[in-house]
């Protein structure tokens, strides 16, 4: 029997798309470091305009509520411009690529894992800017919250959004790095048993991982039902442990440490080779591309042979959680797992919104068990304080409510608005 959570949608009826060879796009024309998406962040450059920059070289510091996080370049080239807003605050930089692939020297740790102290691991992860999904943003931050307070360690290998396969591609191509990274993270949070969460219909991945962990008593596999949004941290916890964590900023309250496969892989590279986080795999339309962080989406589409004239809309992210790009040159960031293209004449045209009929379909599919239509209605009337009362902060913006709504009300958008304006700043 597979574990699962209440609510959610079965969106993978057509089966999973096989993961082909991963393309690499290591030399886009330019990359953009853009930090203004992160609330409360600003950029402090340590390289001047016009200076040469190498791969893995530090170009500046992100100053954010989490602390001072270094920012690295994923390409070699020249720093073209430091971006500044009209108040004089720096928020990013543009790096032109020269294609030489000069690499800054990096040194990894080559001792035994048992001699690494958790504090040292946290230090390395912070220095190498290893991110994690969710409001805590960085792996070191999450470990700091979880250290000595968690009882279970889950490695999340679920990929449930239709059309997104970047995590699966990563786990299939480099399972050793992911598993070793998990060992490092386990050492950091001081747990000696790792449960790998995989969807039960993902046969290909299950086979690879089962082969890999055969002789390793540290790992075990937990099969969960194929359901959207199984790949989110909250619902991994809900499926396996039966509790929905009330606040993703405090994972220690549910005593479960959930780490994504991407985080584990990045942690392994950071600790073993000293490589900072500056590249990721992105699913572009139907292909998976390894590209530096900051690659403009237009370059990604060009490398996959998608013509801009054919696109009706480009979405940064999958079709359920993604956000429409205003411009094709928006950069890829650590949270961009996919770029979805909606072509002209595509069947996925969403009709005009009509009045909500309170049919309750959104309530029955909502995985965080709130009342989406009611919260959306309150948000439309701008009663944001009341929205908080009805659990707007618990919403994880999975978009299930939008999917089932027969009146096509943009429920997710309305709740997101409410979350951003919640008194007490519970939103992210």
């Amino acid at each position, binding site marked *: 029997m597979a574990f699962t959570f209440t609510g959610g949608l079965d969106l993978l009826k057509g089966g999973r798309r096989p993961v082909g060879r991963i393309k690499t796009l290591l030399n886009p024309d330019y990359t*953009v470091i853009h930090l*203004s998406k*992160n609330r*409360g*962040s600003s950029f402090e450059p340590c390289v001047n305009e016009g200076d040469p920059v190498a791969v893995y070289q530090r170009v500046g510091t992100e*100053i954010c*509520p989490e602390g001072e996080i270094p920012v690295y370049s994923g390409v070699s080239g020249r720093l073209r411009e430091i*971006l500044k*807003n*009209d*108040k*004089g605050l*720096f*928020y990013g930089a*543009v790096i032109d690529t020269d294609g030489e692939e000069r690499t800054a020297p990096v040194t990894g740790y080559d001792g035994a894992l048992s001699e690494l102290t958790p504090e040292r691991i946290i230090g390395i992860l912070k220095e190498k800017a290893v991110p994690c999904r969710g409001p805590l943003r960085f792996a070191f931050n999450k470990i700091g919250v979880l250290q000595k307070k968690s009882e279970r360690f889950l490695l999340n290998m679920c990929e449930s959004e239709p059309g997104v396969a970047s995590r699966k591609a990563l786990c299939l191509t480099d399972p050793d790095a992911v598993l070793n990274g998990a060992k490092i993270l386990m050492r950091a949070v001081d747990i000696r048993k790792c449960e790998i969460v995989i969807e039960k219909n993902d046969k290909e991945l299950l086979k690879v991982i089962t082969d890999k962990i055969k002789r390793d008593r540290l790992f075990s596999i937990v099969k969960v039902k194929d359901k959207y949004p199984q790949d989110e941290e909250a619902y991994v916890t809900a499926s396996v442990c039966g509790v929905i964590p009330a606040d993703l*900023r*405090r994972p220690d309250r549910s005593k479960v440490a959930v780490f994504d496969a991407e985080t584990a892989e990045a942690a392994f590279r950071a600790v073993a080779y000293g490589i900072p986080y500056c590249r990721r795999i992105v699913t572009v339309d139907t292909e998976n591309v390894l590209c530096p962080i900051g690659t403009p989406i237009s370059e990604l589409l060009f490398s996959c042979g998608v013509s*801009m004239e054919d*696109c*009706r*809309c480009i*979405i940064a992210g999958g*079709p*359920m*959680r993604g*956000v*429409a*790009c*205003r*411009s*094709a040159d928006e950069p890829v960031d650590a949270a961009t797992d996919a770029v*979805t293209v909606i072509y002209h004449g595509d069947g996925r045209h*969403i009709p005009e*919104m*009509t*009045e909500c*009929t309170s*049919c*309750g379909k959104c*309530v*029955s599919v909502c995985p965080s*068990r*709130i*009342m989406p239509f009611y919260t959306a209605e309150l948000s439309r*009337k701008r009663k944001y304080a009341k929205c*908080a*009362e009805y659990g707007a*902060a618990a919403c994880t913006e999975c*978009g299930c409510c*939008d*999917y089932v709504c*027969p*009146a*096509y009300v*943009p*429920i997710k*958008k309305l709740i997101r608005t409410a979350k*951003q304006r919640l008194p*007490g*700043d519970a939103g992210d």
Partner: protein
Amino acid sequence: MKVVELFKRNLPPVKRGLNSAFLCGSCSVPGVMLHVMAALLPIIIWGVYLFGFRVLTVAAVSVAACVVSEALLTLLLYKKAKISDLTAVVTGLMLAMTLPAATPLWIPAVGGVIAIAVKQLSGGTGRNFLNPALFARTVIMLIFGRMMIYTAPFVKLPLFANVSDGLSAGTAMGMLNDGRFPTESVYELLSGKCAGNIGEISSILILLGGIFLLLRGIISYRIPVAFSLTVMALTYLFPRIDVDSSYAVYSILSGGVLFAAFFMATDHSTSPCMPLAQFAYGIGCGALTVLFRYSGLFYDGAYPAVLIMNELSRPLDLLFYRLFGPKKTAAKPKKAPVAVPADGVTETHAPGADNAADDTAVFEAVRDADTKTGETPEETDRDADTAETAVFEAVREEEASETPPEEDADEKAEEKHVDAVPEILPDEPDGENEPENDLMIKEEPDNG
């Protein structure tokens, strides 16, 4: 090259609604209504077989009255007329189902007008707190109760002319109300070879239609099951006439209990959607039905019972949400804040202890503004974003007037961060008024 030019490769415009999830299911409001009509179709066909084509006349008059009054009323109330979502048609059909075939034809016409009037005046499609068809039926029952003429099956009825009183026959429900035992057998009541309202006569066809709706996911099993089981249990425990245990079976098969349970009480806008609230709602409907039947004012207690429970549906939802919903999250920042002087003048906005006082002040201001703008009539925010932006402007103005200048700067800096790519976008005519993180693309003359 300036940075602004980097971001100038514009995309084709995207419709605003797209900024939620980009996939959508196959379900739509007209689709739901078509399902309901499909579930009603066998019942209508059975009615035509029993009472002749006058059934179709009654249904046509009722639907026409609903559609016409919907069109006229939306015009009068300055709303967008949405005949195409088929809600008015279904209301008309539902009303016709609760009337006998031999009723004078002006009754469905008047009923249709009453139904749509109550729907539009209590908020329009989806916001009405009363089931319009049920309300109209109850008004008809109270005012024109004597116009309800029930005829025996297979009696030839004229298509349009009024039916004389001489043809009227007793119904099972009427006999139960009089304290007598119905003459029909259980088999006759199940298959529907008896007198009664068009929609109520064949219990089997009602069950079939209900199961169809259940399987298609239009309704949930909870309300109908709780409703009918409550009626059965109460009539079994407290029978009005002491015959045998079959009184409970008769009381559920005669009258409108099954039709009300599957088609009326499950109406989307007037029934609760939390699972436990649905059980409570169904039980309430059943209990009130039995109470009204025994107290004997109405011909059938099921419809007024549902009508009364309609008002309780939203409060029940909220009550059960509060009792069993997710626990409220204490929205506290995880760490002490890091207020970082970014360029010596402004501070990046980080919530927490250091500037907690400032924060509360700002939020107080926002809350005040919210309560003030919350008083704007619903009609203004019902429709479009023009009104929305206008009110947001108002909120911002109030914030500006109430907060000291540094905080104002803070607030604006925060909004900058909320917007995804605000600084580098080409000028948009009214994009700056949009407070959401959503990225929307406005139409621009030179695309490509």
